Structures are given as C-alpha cells and as structure tokens.
C-alpha cells in the first residue's frame, strides 16, 4: 500500500542573524492511509516547518519528502490536487465576502463545477455549524466562527491528505470536540484518507491519533501509538506537585539524579507553581521533596499521577510543551 507521507532524512535550515538554524534535522517518517498521525513538540520544534514542506510551501534543504507517492519538489502539481491545510489561529478569506462566497471562491481553486461546489459548500456549512451565518460577511464573524470557516475551507476539495496545524486553537470546548469527532469520522468513513495533525493539546493527540511523532529541536525522538508509548513508559513514576511560586528555580530539580523530565506551570493569580515530574523510580521522591524544601517554598499538594502522553513527552524531551 502506498504511503500517504514519507520523508527520508529531511533537513531544513534557515539563515538567521546569528548564523544557520536547523529547523529540521534528518527527519524520516512515514504515514499510512487511514491514519490520524500526530506531530507533538514544543514551540520551535519543527512541526510547522515539516507541515509546510509537505504542503509544498517550503523547499527542503536536503533529503526527500513524498506526499501520496509524489515528490514535494518535483511533482507539486499532483500533490496539490489531493491535499489541503488548515492552520489554527489563522483565518484566511475575504472579509467583505460572505461565508458562502468565500467557500465558493476557494472551491474554484480546485476546479469544482458549480453544481459540485454548491453541494459541497452547503455540506460544509452544515458540518461546521455556520448555517445561520452563511450569508454573513466574514469580517462580521467572531474569531471562533472564522476558524470554523477556515476548517470548512480546508475540506472544500475533499482532500485525501489533510494537514491540520493546531486546528482547535481558539475554539470553544464544545466546538473543538465537534471538530475532533468530525475528523475522526472522516477517516473512519474513508480509510483512504489521512490526517496529519500538529497540536499542543496532549489530550487531543491521545484521543485522536493512531500514532504520534514526538519532535524536538528538529529531530524525531519517537514514533509510536499513544497507548504503546504509555505502556512503554508505565514504569516511570509521575509526580504532580503544587508549591508556592517558585520561578525559574524549578529547573534545578532537573539536576537531581533520577529525574527524567519536568514540566512547570505558573499560576500568578494563585501564586502557585504546578510541577509535573517524571522519575525513573520511587526512591527519587524523597530527594525531590528535600530539594523543594531547600528552595524555601511551601508544598501544598503532592500526588502520583497515571502515565499519560504528556508524562511520556516530558520523559522523552525532558520538559513540557510550555
């Protein structure tokens, strides 16, 4: 069976003011049809760079990439017919045109006949819940509705391979859930379809993805199914600790032997810091407690947590997505 996406030692460098930046460093992966494939990584890890190369918006510096079996450098025309992209937080479109007009226009970029276009536009307007706003100008929609329109636009050509770059960013909880279900249904109904999803929401990746690739500093660290990753890392001890505000001193905990990774979230309104630590074994817990006490902060709560995709991420990358 032909892979939907395949990369071979893909590298991309950018020239910055302080020298070259390697956004992707020898990335090799493959995604099969019918998969919802997640790309997880902190900001600047290379997720968007990879997505842009696969969408033919960016050329690789070296290595190869194939989408639907076609080379992203040499065979772009064939790739464009079967892909589409939705970037969360972006709302492309023409403010002065209505929802329906915007979708019609984008359908024409894919050569849809008027009849096909009309049918498809109506289907998508229903699917994303914009029925009441179909005749409204885009510049009058709320940002959440613009994002719904963006998602509808990304499906206008019924793409075989859909790239979703943080698609639920900025959406309300209910609609975000509807979108996730819609995406899952897309692939279930048509096993030839593939979705490549980049996300910051671990729970989203855990829920939706058949496999995830964890990427950091341009390199792929692991590619595996979420369930398998959790079972592989089930021996890790996951600690959830809430302390009074600790600032950057929290990083000192990483120096302790047996601490595999740490995620820090500050809550200025409560003046607290939540630490998620991944430890190699339980015997490290007393060292952690001592270290926290030495920092002179008050410990409000400490619990052991289940292994989740987030704790696997912290274990592998050494830090959270913050």
């Amino acid at each position, binding site marked *: 069976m032909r892979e939907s996406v395949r990369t071979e030692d893909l590298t991309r460098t950018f020239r910055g003011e302080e020298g070259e930046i390697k956004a992707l460093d020898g990335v090799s992966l493959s995604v099969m049809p019918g998969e919802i494939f997640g790309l997880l990584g902190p900001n600047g890890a290379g997720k968007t760079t990879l997505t842009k190369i696969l969408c033919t918006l960016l050329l690789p510096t070296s290595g190869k990439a194939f989408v639907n079996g076609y080379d992203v450098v040499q065979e772009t025309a064939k790739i464009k017919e079967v892909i589409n992209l939705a970037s969360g937080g972006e709302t492309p479109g*023409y*403010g*002065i045109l209505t929802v329906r007009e915007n979708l019609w226009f984008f359908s024409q970029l894919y050569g849809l006949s008027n009849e096909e276009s009309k049918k498809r536009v109506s289907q998508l307007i229903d699917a994303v819940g914009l029925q009441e706003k179909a005749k409204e100008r885009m*510049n009058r929609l709320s940002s959440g509705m613009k994002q719904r329109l963006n998602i509808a636009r990304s499906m206008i050509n019924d793409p075989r391979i859909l790239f979703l770059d943080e698609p639920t960013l900025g959406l309300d909880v209910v609609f975000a859930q509807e979108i996730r279900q819609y995406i899952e249904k897309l692939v279930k109904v048509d096993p030839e379809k593939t979705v490549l999803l980049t996300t910051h929401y671990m729970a989203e990746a855990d829920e939706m993805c058949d496999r995830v690739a964890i990427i950091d500093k341009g390199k792929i660290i692991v590619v595996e199914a979420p369930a398998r990753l959790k079972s592989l890392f089930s021996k890790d001890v996951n600690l959830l600790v809430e302390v009074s505000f600790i600032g950057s001193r929290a990083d000192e905990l990483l120096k302790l032997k047996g601490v595999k990774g740490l995620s820090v979230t500050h809550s200025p309104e409560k003046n607290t810091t939540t630490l998620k630590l991944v430890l190699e074994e339980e015997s490290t817990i007393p060292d952690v407690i001592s270290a926290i006490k030495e920092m002179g902060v008050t410990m409000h709560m400490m619990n052991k947590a289940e292994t989740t995709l987030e704790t696997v991420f912290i274990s592998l990358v050494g830090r959270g997505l913050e």
Partner: protein
Amino acid sequence: MAIEGWRGFKAAVWLGWQIDSNWTDIFLFSLYTIIKPVFGMLTFAFMYLAATAGGPIDPEKLAYILVGSSLFTYAGNAIWNSFFAVHEDKEHYMTIRYLNIAPSNFTLYYLGRITPSVLFSSTISLIINLAVGVFLLGMKVDPTSQTTAYLLVSIPIVALGIIGYALMVVGVSFFTTRYLWSLVDGLTGLSFLLGGVLYPPTVLPPAIKWISQIVPWYYWIEMLRSPIIGSGAGLTLSFILLGAAFSAAFLVLGIWFFNWSVNRAKRDGTLDMVISW
C-alpha cells in the same frame, strides 16, 4: 503622565522612522527619498516646457509652480501618513488596542508617528527640489532679509496648522476602512486643486474660485512660498492673520475631533476592529 506622554511621543517618532526607513539599506532609502520628489517636480517642469514651447521662460511662473508643488509634499505626507498610521496599527500590525490602553498620550503617539515623514522627509524633499530647481532648471528664488523674517514667522504658524489638520485626518481614519484610501486621495486632490498650489486661485472658474478662500493650504503654502521666491513683500498682514486663524482653528478642532473620534470608535466597538478585506 507628562513623562509617559513625552516618552511615548519619542518612541512614536522612532517607530514612524523605522516603519518609513528600515525596509531597506541606507543607500536605497536615500535614493527613494530623492527620486520621488524630484521626478514629481520634473513633471511640472516639463509641463511648463511643453506649454511654453519655443517661448521665453517666465521665471516667476516657473518658480510659482515648482516651489508650490514642492511645498505640497507637506500636505500630501500629512494626509497620507495620518491615514495609513491608523490603518497599519489597526489592521496590519494590530497594535492599536495596546497603544490605546497604555498610559502614554494617544494623541501624542499619532503625532509622533507621522513626524518623521511630515517633518523630516518633506523638508528634505523641499531642500532637494529647491536645489534641483535652482541649479538645474534655472528657477529664480530671491529671498531677502525681509522675506526671511516672514518665513521665520510663517513656519511655526503653518506647522501648528498642519498638526491640527493631521489630527483631523487621523480622527476620520478611525471610521474608514483600508480601502477608502480613495477618500484620502480625494482630500489630497481637493487641496491640490483649490489650495493655490500650482496656480493662483484666480485661474479657477468663478463657481469654485471662492472655495480656495476657505482651504487652509492656500494660506499655508503661500505663506511659505512667497518668502522663498522673494515676493514675500506681497504677503499682507491680513493674509498672514487669516493663515494664523486657520492654524489655530485646525489645531483646536483637530485635538477635539481626534478625542471625539476615539471615544466614538470605542462606543461603537470599532477602535480595534479589523475591517480589512
């Protein structure tokens, strides 16, 4: 409050300068600063040549047109940059809400923002144009000590008027979309047509001639042109006083209208609304 206002103003001047100039290196920017006004002036010079082909040069008419067109750069830059400053902040850079909620003075911010183009770029254009006009085109300018005195009196009067005018345009910009730039084009066109820029208003048909009397640029441009050309003795006290009255009126009106516009835009919820296409 005063310190925040002053610092905000300085930062806005710096920002305006960066936006105007940091898109390229200094050489290209210098070329840009010279080419635009010079070619603008050359167009009028060749119109003059074409119209008077074969005939003797009338140095006063030539100077009237060339100095007038050069001075109009202040008007053009004041109008265009005031309009675009708001639209860039609102729709392109999307910083307007943060600028407005900051404690520094919002009015001073916009004045600072347009200062580099209205004051520096326009003055540089004027100097370059005068040099090209005098040395290459044989334009005659003959300032005397008396006309220089007129000029020194006129400059601050006109400057205050331009500040008020610019604030009015900024105020209007809060209610327009990016694509109503043609409205701004029209305002520039109206000032160009009726402001005594290239010809005295006596050339206009009677039906519209009188309108020049209420176009502030007619006074402001003449108050600067006459002393430069050397016919400043032709400026009467009443003309200068009228120019000063327009300056005062526009300054007061401009400040009031700006503040009213901001409040109105906040009330309508459009201050930071992106209305672009």
